[in-house]
């Protein structure tokens, strides 16, 4: 059985082994180099030796993962993503094909006929009305790719998977927030049953893009600086890129907590909880220093409608959604 967190920034596969779980992380990025002459093609291929890349039928080279980001920075450019804001788009032909390739490579062939596999999908966003945001299409693409590999693939909501991974001690009652690169997904759970699920479309990529506009650097440069982690949210920083990142992070948390408070206030499906709730936060965007502290503070400032016991990080914020997918696969 396999669980896969299909994220905008990372694809994380989880597989149970004899004494634990094996995770495979792959950076969800690509960068295309199109040679102009046959000689240039040979030179480029030589220069790419040791990197993860594929050669397409039109002769172009597609770098994948971290190598794609490195090459993009080297060329003062921005690496592409197969997905945007949590889903794959039908309009992005290259992205769709690259995502299919990465998924096939990371998942591999099923070890038995119809091996069970659960992958995560985002919830419908509450802050975007866009024809291009098609969760059904995204789900169909992933199912088709994984079915070609021999899997019986089923989907689960991203934040619901996070609940299954992290809320065991709380009797599967609480709130899980998955802060990915493209989206923030939220699930409110009561005794193992998801009661409210939604998403917002601003997260880590929004911080990168806004910081890129403010500093004139490419998104990829901002992303690498940000992931270097040498900053704290809300604190001044001498590096202009990190200073911008810190400011936009604070605005992002303010926006997310306002959306969260607004969506849950007087929500018809919201249960009446007897005890204060634990809020679990996971995802790469939540790894920035000070994220949990500021998130807690902003929830209180923005009149969060439920009593909070604590806001805390998942035990393994980058792998917890994939872990939840694996748990779901074992229950199905």
């Amino acid at each position, binding site marked *: 059985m396999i669980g896969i967190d299909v994220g905008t920034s990372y694809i994380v596969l989880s597989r149970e082994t004899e004494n634990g*779980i094996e995770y495979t992380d*792959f950076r969800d990025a690509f960068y295309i180099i199109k040679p102009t002459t046959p000689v240039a093609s040979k030179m480029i291929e030589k220069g790419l030796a040791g990197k993860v890349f594929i050669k397409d039928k039109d002769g172009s080279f597609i770098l994948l993962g971290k190598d794609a980001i490195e090459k993009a920075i080297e060329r003062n450019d921005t690496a592409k993503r197969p997905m945007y804001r949590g889903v794959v788009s039908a309009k992005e032909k290259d992205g769709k*094909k690259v995502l299919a390739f990465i998924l096939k490579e990371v998942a591999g062939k099923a070890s038995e006929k119809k091996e069970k596999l659960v992958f995560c999908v985002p919830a419908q966003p509450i802050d975007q009305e866009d024809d291009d945001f098609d969760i059904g299409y995204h789900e169909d693409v992933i199912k088709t790719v994984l079915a070609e590999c021999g899997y019986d693939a089923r989907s689960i909501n991203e934040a619901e998977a996070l609940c299954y991974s992290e809320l065991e001690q709380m009797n599967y009652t609480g709130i899980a927030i998955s802060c990915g690169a493209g989206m923030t997904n939220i699930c409110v759970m009561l005794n193992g049953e998801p009661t409210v699920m939604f998403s917002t479309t601003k997260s880590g990529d929004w911080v990168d893009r806004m910081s890129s506009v403010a500093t004139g650097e490419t998104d990829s440069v901002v992303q690498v600086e940000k992931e270097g982690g040498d900053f704290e949210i809300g604190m001044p920083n001498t590096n202009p890129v990190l200073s911008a990142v810190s400011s936009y992070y604070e605005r992002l948390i303010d926006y997310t907590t306002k959306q969260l408070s607004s969506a849950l206030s007087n929500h018809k499906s919201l249960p009446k909880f007897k005890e204060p709730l634990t809020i679990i936060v996971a995802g790469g965007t939540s790894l920035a220093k000070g994220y949990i502290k500021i998130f807690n503070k902003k929830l209180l400032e923005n009149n969060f409608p439920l009593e909070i016991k604590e806001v805390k990080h998942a035990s393994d914020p980058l792998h917890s959604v994939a872990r939840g997918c694996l748990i779901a696969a074992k229950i199905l």
Partner: protein
Amino acid sequence: MSSNKENLILLLLFVLTYLAGYIIGRMYSGDGVKISSNKLDSFFSKGNKVNNTKEETKISIDSSTVVIDLKTDDMEKKYDTMGDVSHVSDNISDSVNRLKNMKEGT
């Protein structure tokens, strides 16, 4: 007196013949098939079903985007391994069992 008696017997016979004819007519149709008590119902309900379908069911076309163009056979792989693999000691069987029990209980 006797003609009155005869008339009465004749009248009773008419009534009995009419009743017998009515009962036989109710029980059997012309093609010899026994009439079930709900035959009319099923016929009309059939008709009603058609009418209801027209009123209640909204016929819509599936306009979701068809998944095509996912072939990756023409992409030539130029590397040995991809992805960072890590291993953690973990046991999810307790979580799985607890969740299974919860789901079965609801």
